[in-house]
């Protein structure tokens, strides 16, 4: 663990801002993921019903 962190610190940071978020709940990412799932359902069932219509 330590070696890994040293490794990271050894790199010249690109443009790191100094602040870090301590309490972070990825609410937006959860919403994004839900949207992704809905899009997936639309595409998948779109083809599914197209398949059924061609039986």
């Amino acid at each position, binding site marked *: 663990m330590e070696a890994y962190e040293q490794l990271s610190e050894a790199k010249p940071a690109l443009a790191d801002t100094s602040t870090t978020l301590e309490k972070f709940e990825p609410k937006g990412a959860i919403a994004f993921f839900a949207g992704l799932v809905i899009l997936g359902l639309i595409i998948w069932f779109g083809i*599914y019903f197209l398949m059924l219509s061609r*039986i």
Partner: protein
Amino acid sequence: MSLIDKTEKRVMMASGAVLALFLFSVLYAKGKYKSDLPECLPYSKAYETPKVTKLDDSTYQVFAVAQMWQFQPSEIYVPVGSEVDFFVTSKDVVHGFNILLKNVNMMAIYGNINKTTVKFDKPGVYKITCHEYCGVGHQNMQAQVIVNYPTEPPPNLPR
């Protein structure tokens, strides 16, 4: 305390649920509508002679042979409502056998027999397209199933 973040865990479970829903739908269509992938048959030389056989008024068998760059038979006449078994093979390279706007989508392969069954409920001309590259004439390789349209098959054509 669990090691992986709880949201990551929920994401994995949600993904699993979505995939389970897809799986259920696939099995449902397979069970209820008999919608399935091509059937697997052992090779037999009999299928290499192209022909259309009428089993009864609404059941037909087609032995389709793909070759560079045509299908035989190239025109297949069946009445509306018939159920047709397609047996497909190739005399040379790999060909495709895709009946447009129907779920008939097979590879035609030398020394192999592919089979699927489809029902034609509506009259019309159904194009069969070769969709695997099979050499310089590939783009001309098409046949058709004519279902009661525009008229009954001419009497001089073999059925």
